[in-house]
């Protein structure tokens, strides 16, 4: 390819500088978008790092809601929600397999069951054609904060003081004083008692979602599961036993399946969809969409919920996420926690080593 009209090579410095500039600008933009140049920006990694600071690093365990137990069952729809959502899980008479998990909030997998008055229930519904619906619910009527930044600030303000091992009351107090939206949660938690059983609790999704009906119309909703069991058929807390919840569950399941109603509350215009600190008025129309039946339980280190990331933004056609700012933050942070704990199970280079199930205390 000899070309007499070709220009001769040129070594002028500005030409080299231009090439260097192009490479540096592109690499810099990449690093900026990845958040590598702005460690102070709130990122999914930073949220999970802070959770770890509070709860400690327990290889293989979730970075929050670390202590828990797997359950398996199904959801039986009665068709009541089908006129609001096209999701096949709501079709009349349909039965959808469920893998769930009961847990305690907090990053310590060995926390005594009586240490917090909150329990959680996560569900993964396996719909036909590869669709799934995942939800994580807490046994409380409101969330303390409305935004990821406030959640992060709360985590930092309530980190254990290295001197006492307990949160510094001054810092925590200052946080709550400057965050009046935490008021409803604080009022509730003052009287809340750790329950004697997982199965007598009501679990609330707290974040708002949309149901999408056959005409494409969106209905703002919040859902919860309410227990059928309200009696004290279980073992209840035994003096000095930090793990009574799992035993209670085992004992109750030995007597037969456990049931919850899935209740869906429809918003009225003006009800906030982006603020999990605010309850919707009690008179809002609520439908009973069907029955959740739990048939068996398994320890979380060998059960089918172990490697499930209960990311609440995984929803089927017929359900959509709302503008609640907690939802994308949960999705991003759960993915980080999930990768860390599965990397520890897999003994990836650089990951802390998770003990094998038999080594777990």
């Amino acid at each position, binding site marked *: *390819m*000899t*070309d007499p*009209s*070709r*220009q*001769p*090579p*040129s*070594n002028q410095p500005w*030409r080299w500088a*231009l*090439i260097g500039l*192009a*490479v540096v600008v*592109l*690499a810099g*933009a*990449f690093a900026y*978008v*990845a*958040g590598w140049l702005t460690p102070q*920006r*709130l*990122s*999914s*990694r930073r*949220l999970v790092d802070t959770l770890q600071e509070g709860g400690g690093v327990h290889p293989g365990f979730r970075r929050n809601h670390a202590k828990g137990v797997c359950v398996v069952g199904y959801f039986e729809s009665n068709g009541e929600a089908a006129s609001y959502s096209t999701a096949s899980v709501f079709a009349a008479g349909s039965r959808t397999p469920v893998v769930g998990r009961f847990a305690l909030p907090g990053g310590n997998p060995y926390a005594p069951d009586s240490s917090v008055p909150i329990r959680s229930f996560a569900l993964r519904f396996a719909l036909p*054609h*590869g*669709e*799934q619906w995942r939800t994580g619910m807490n046994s409380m009527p409101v969330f303390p904060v409305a935004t*990821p930044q406030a959640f992060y600030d709360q985590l930092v303000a309530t980190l254990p003081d290295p001197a006492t091992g307990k949160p510094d009351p001054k810092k925590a107090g200052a946080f709550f004083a400057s965050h009046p939206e935490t008021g409803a949660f604080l009022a509730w938690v003052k009287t809340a008692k750790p329950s004697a059983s997982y199965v007598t609790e009501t679990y609330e999704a707290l974040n708002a979602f949309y149901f999408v009906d056959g005409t494409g119309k969106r209905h703002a909703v919040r859902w919860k599961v309410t227990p059928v069991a309200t009696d004290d058929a279980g073992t209840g807390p035994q003096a000095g036993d930090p793990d009574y919840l799992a035993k209670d569950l085992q004992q109750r399941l030995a007597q037969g399946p456990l049931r919850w109603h899935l209740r869906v509350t429809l918003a009225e215009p003006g009800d906030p969809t982006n603020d999990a600190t605010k309850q919707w008025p009690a008179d809002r129309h609520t439908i009973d969409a069907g029955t959740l039946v739990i048939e068996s339980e398994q320890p979380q280190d060998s059960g089918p919920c*172990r*490697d*499930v*990331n209960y990311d609440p*933004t*995984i929803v*089927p*056609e017929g359900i959509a*996420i709302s*503008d609640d*700012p907690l*939802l*994308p*933050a949960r*999705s*991003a*942070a759960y*993915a*980080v926690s*999930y*990768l860390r704990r*599965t*990397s520890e*199970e*897999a003994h*990836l280079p650089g*990951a802390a080593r998770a003990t094998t199930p038999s080594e777990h205390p």
Partner: protein
Amino acid sequence: MNAKHATYPGAFHPLARLLHWLMALLILTMLFVGVGMVSTVSEKHQWLLALHKPLGVTIFVLALIRLAVRWRHPPPPLPADMPLLMQWVAHASHWVLYALMLSLPLVGWAMLSAGGYPISLGGSWHLPPLLSFDGETYAWLRVTHRWLAYLLFVTVLGHMGAALYHGLIRRDDVLPSMTFPRRETVVVEPVIVTPTASEPPSSEPPRV
């Protein structure tokens, strides 16, 4: 059979050039979308993730089409005065780029399968799982997806630097061969158009 195309024998086929620039745009977008979405906790996380998966599948399909076009219309040779080692690096880096644009989407798909996730490409359109549900496999593939993406980005940086080196320093035919080939670089004799010629005449001397 290197300079097969009649109009610009020293250049890539126009379709190859179109695909190159379209895919360069898509792949750079994907790399930025990828690192951005895993970092942010804002609502961007959701729509970037929703964009990432169908775009990744598009890149995979376009890469297959591109290889077919390449096979049908082989690329022009590198300038003969390029040092052999430089030629070797150029060719090797091109194959690395092709390998990554095919493997990254496959690893993405496989990793979501191993994580037990639904692999939605928008609406109710789902890909079937490639692997069975296994958290440890997920971790390996997820970390592989990350490092292959970083490798792709570094290779693209080097590739862009090399292309600009050809265009600004060496000032040879390499950059024009992928952009706007100069007609005056054509070394073939004027093309004689015969009504029946379906195959463009070759610039190479006939074999004996």
